[in-house]
C-alpha cells in the first residue's frame, strides 16, 4: 500500500516537467498563439495547426512520449496508465500547445476496445506521432481537441453504447475556434450512433460490431482528468505565488483570511482530483496486470466507477480552481496579460470533454449499487 508514484514514475514525471519548463513557457505559448492569429498569406500551410507548437509536437514524438502507454509490439513503450497520467499532468501544468489529449486517448480507446486489426492498423502510427487522434462522445457537447479531418476519430456513446472509429478523411470533423486557443479543436456533430444504420464510408464499429464499450473510454477520461490535475495545480501554484507578493492595504494579499481560505479550497479540490485520478489509473493498470481471471474481473468492474469519480472530481476542480485563480488575482487576473486565463480556457474544455461532472455522477449513481465496497487485495 503506497499511494505515491514509483521511483521510475517520479523520474519520468520529473523529466517531463524539466523539459516542458524549458520548452513550454507561457512566453512561448504567447508566441504560438499569436502566430495562429496571423492571417495566412499565399498558400495555406496544411501541416500547420493553429495554436499548436510544431517544434514541441515533433520533439515529443521523437522522444517517444506519444507512444508511452502503447504496447511495444505496436511501437510504443508499453508503460501503464499511471505513467501516462504522470506525463499528462505535466503537459496540463504547462498548458502545452501540443495535440496530446486527442492522440493519447485515441490510442487507449483503440488499444482497449479495438479489434486486433484496428490495433494493427492504427496504434503504431499514433505511437510515432505521425497520426493525430481525437476522442469524443456523440451529442456535440464540446469542441474536440485534436479533431481534424486528418486525424483518427473515435466517437463513443456517453451511456456506454457502441462506438465508432473513423479513419482519416471521414469528413465528420469541422474545424472550430474553441475558447482555448492553445491547440486545434474540431466539432463532431453526430447526435447518436444507431447500430441499425450504416456508418460513414470511412467509419467502422469499434471492436468490429456494435457492442457496448467502456474500458477504453474510461481510460481516456482518466487521462483528461490527469491533464486537469496539472492545469489546476498550476492555477494553485500561480495564485499562491501571486498573493504572497501582491500587497494591498500595506499587507500581502495572501494574509487576508478570505484569500487564505480560497486558496485552501483550491488545494482541496486539486488534492481530491489527484487522488481520484491516480487511483483510477492504478485500477486500470491493475486490470492489465492481473493474472488471476477473477481478480481481473473484479478490478475491471471497479474501473468504471473509479474513472467516473476521477473525471467528476477533476471536471469540478477544473472549473472551480481556475475560476478561483482568476478571482484571487483580482483585476489583473481578468487581463490577457496574466497567464491564468490559459488555464481557465483549457480547463473549461477538458471539464466537458468525455463527459462533464454531472454525467459522471450519473454513472456513479447508476453503478454504486452493483459494485461492492472497494477493498485492497493482495499485491
Amino acid at each position, binding site marked *: 500500500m503506497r499511494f505515491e508514484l514509483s521511483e521510475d514514475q517520479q523520474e519520468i514525471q520529473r523529466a517531463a516537467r524539466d523539459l516542458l519548463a524549458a520548452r513550454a513557457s507561457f512566453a512561448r505559448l504567447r508566441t504560438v498563439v499569436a502566430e495562429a492569429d496571423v492571417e495566412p498569406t499565399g498558400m495555406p500551410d496544411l501541416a500547420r495547426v493553429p495554436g499548436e507548437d510544431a517544434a514541441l509536437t515533433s520533439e515529443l514524438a521523437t522522444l517517444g512520449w506519444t507512444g508511452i502507454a502503447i504496447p511495444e509490439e505496436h511501437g510504443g513503450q508499453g508503460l501503464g496508465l499511471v505513467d501516462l497520467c504522470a506525463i499528462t499532468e505535466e503537459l496540463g501544468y504547462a498548458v502545452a500547445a501540443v495535440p496530446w489529449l486527442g492522440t493519447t486517448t485515441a490510442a487507449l480507446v483503440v488499444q482497449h476496445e479495438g479489434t486486433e486489426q484496428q490495433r494493427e492498423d492504427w496504434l503504431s502510427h499514433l505511437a510515432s506521432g505521425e497520426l493525430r487522434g481525437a476522442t469524443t462522445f456523440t*451529442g*456535440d*457537447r*464540446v*469542441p474536440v481537441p485534436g479533431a481534424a479531418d486528418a486525424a483518427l476519430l473515435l466517437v463513443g456513446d456517453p451511456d456506454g453504447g457502441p462506438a465508432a472509429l473513423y479513419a482519416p478523411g471521414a469528413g465528420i470533423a469541422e474545424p*472550430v*475556434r*474553441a*475558447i*482555448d*486557443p492553445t491547440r486545434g479543436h474540431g*466539432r463532431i456533430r453526430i447526435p447518436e450512433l444507431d447500430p441499425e444504420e450504416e456508418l460513414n464510408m470511412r467509419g467502422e464499429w469499434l471492436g468490429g460490431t456494435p457492442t457496448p464499450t467502456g474500458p477504453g473510454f474510461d481510460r481516456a477520461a482518466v487521462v483528461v482528468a490527469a491533464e486537469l490535475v496539472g492545469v489546476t495545480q498550476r492555477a494553485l501554484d500561480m495564485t499562491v505565488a501571486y*498573493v504572497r507578493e*501582491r500587497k*494591498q*492595504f*500595506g*499587507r500581502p*494579499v495572501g494574509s*487576508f*483570511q*478570505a*484569500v487564505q481560505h*480560497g486558496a485552501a479550497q483550491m488545494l482541496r479540490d486539486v488534492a481530491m482530483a489527484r487522488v481520484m485520478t491516480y487511483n483510477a489509473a492504478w485500477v486500470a493498470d491493475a486490470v492489465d496486470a492481473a493474472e488471476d481471471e477473477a481478480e481481473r474481473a473484479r478490478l475491471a468492474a471497479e474501473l468504471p466507477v473509479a474513472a467516473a469519480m476521477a473525471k467528476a472530481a477533476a471536471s469540478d476542480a477544473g*472549473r472551480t480552481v481556475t*475560476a478561483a485563480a*482568476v*478571482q*484571487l*488575482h*483580482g*483585476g*489583473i*487576473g*481578468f*487581463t*490577457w*496579460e*496574466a497567464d*491564468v*486565463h490559459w488555464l*481557465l*480556457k483549457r480547463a*473549461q*474544455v477538458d*471539464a*466537458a470533454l468525455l463527459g*462533464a461532472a*454531472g454525467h459522471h455522477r450519473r454513472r456513479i449513481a447508476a453503478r454504486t449499487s452493483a459494485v461492492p465496497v472497494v477493498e485492497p487485495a493482495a499485491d
Partner: protein
Amino acid sequence: MDLTFTPEQLTFRDELRAWLAEHGPAGALTPEPDGEDESWEWRREWQRTLAEGGWAGVHWPTEVGGRGATLTETAIFFEELGRSGAPLPADVLGILLAGPTLMVWGDDAQQERLLPTILSADETWCQGFSEPDAGSDFAAVATRAVLEDPDDPESDWLVTGQKVWTSGAQYAKWCMLVARTGGPVDAGSAGTDVAAAAAGAATGAGAATGAAATGAAKARPKKHQGLSYMVLDMEQDEVDVRPLVQLTGSPEFNELFLTEARVPQSMVVGGVGNGWKVALTTLMNERAGLAFFLQVRLRQALDRLVATARENGRSEDPVVADRLADLHLRTEAIRLMAWKGLTAIEQYGQPGPEGSLTKWLWSETNQLLVQLAVDVVGADALSGEDRWGYELLRARGNSIEGGTTEIQKSIIAERVLGLPRA
C-alpha cells in the same frame, strides 16, 4: 406593500415602450456592427437618438436637458431599455457619474462648460480612479498633481501617474480623475473601500485589483485629505491611452499614462483636497437604476438558456431543471431586491444594503448561468465564435469589476451588520 405602478408610471412606461418599439432594436436601430470602433460609434449614435427623444438623461433635471424622472421612473427606464434589447448609451459614465457629480459639486463655469455636451454624446467621459498598485485602496492613489508654478495663482496642475480600468478612454474628451495634490501616498494602511463603492458601475466602468482586501487597517480618513477630483482634457499629448486586453481577447478597458498632463485650476471639482468626498458622494442613487438593466439582461439570458434547453431536451434532465429553477429564483430575487432598495432610498433618502447584495448576487448568478450553459448548450458554449463562449469568459470579470465580491461582503459585514473593522 404595493408592487404596482401608478397610472403616471404606467404612462411613462408605455410612452417609453412605444418610443423604443420605433427607435430601438425592434425598430430603426440597426444590429451592433463588428469592430470596436464601429461598435462605439453605433452606441454613440444610439445615445444621440436617445437624446433626441429626450431619453438620454431621464433622471437629469429638465433645465439641463433631462426628463426630471423620479427614481421609480428611472428604474423603469433601465428595465425597459434592457427589455427592448437596446444597448446602454455610449457615455453611461458621463450620464450616470460625471453629470450628476458636476451638478452637486461643480461651480457654474464647470457646469456651463461641461454639462451641455454630455447627453448628446458630443463629448464623452472616462474615469481615472483605479491604479495598478491601488486597486480598491483609495488611500494608495499615487497619481500626483503639482502646480506648475506655485507662485502663479493661474498656474495649471501637472498630473503624473498611471490609471487602469478606464473604459472608453480612447474616445473620451474628458476624464474624471482623482489625484494626490498634497500629503504623502499612504502605501501602508488606511484602506477604505471607497474605490470599490464609487469606482464604477457593474458594467465595467471600474474594477478593483486584489481579491479580498478591504479596510485592513483602522480607518484613518485624514489620509484621504490629500486627494483632489479634477477634470482632465484627454486631448493633449501628455495623455497616453493604451488598450488593456481582457482574457476575452477584447480590449474593453485601457491603461492611462499621464506625464505632466495639464489641468487648469478651474477644472478642480469641489475644491482642492476634497476629492475623496466628491468621489464618494458621486450619487450612488442614480446608479441604482443600472441594477434594473442588468437584472433584465440576466433574465433574458436565462430565457434564452431555457429555450435552448427545451429545444435540445436538456430541460427534461431533472438536475438541469433544478439548476434552471434556482437561476429563476435568483434572478427574481435580484429584481425584487432592486425594487426594495429603491423603496429604501425613496422612503429614507439612503440606500439599504441592497446595492452590495444585488451586485454580489448578480455576478454570482450570471457566472452560474454561463457555466450551466456549457452543460446545457454543449459545444457552442465553448466556442470562441459563439456568444455563449464569450459570455462564459466575460462573466469571470463580474465578481471583480465594480468592487470584488470579497469587498462587497466586507462592506456588508462592516457597514450593514456593523461588525468591527477587519
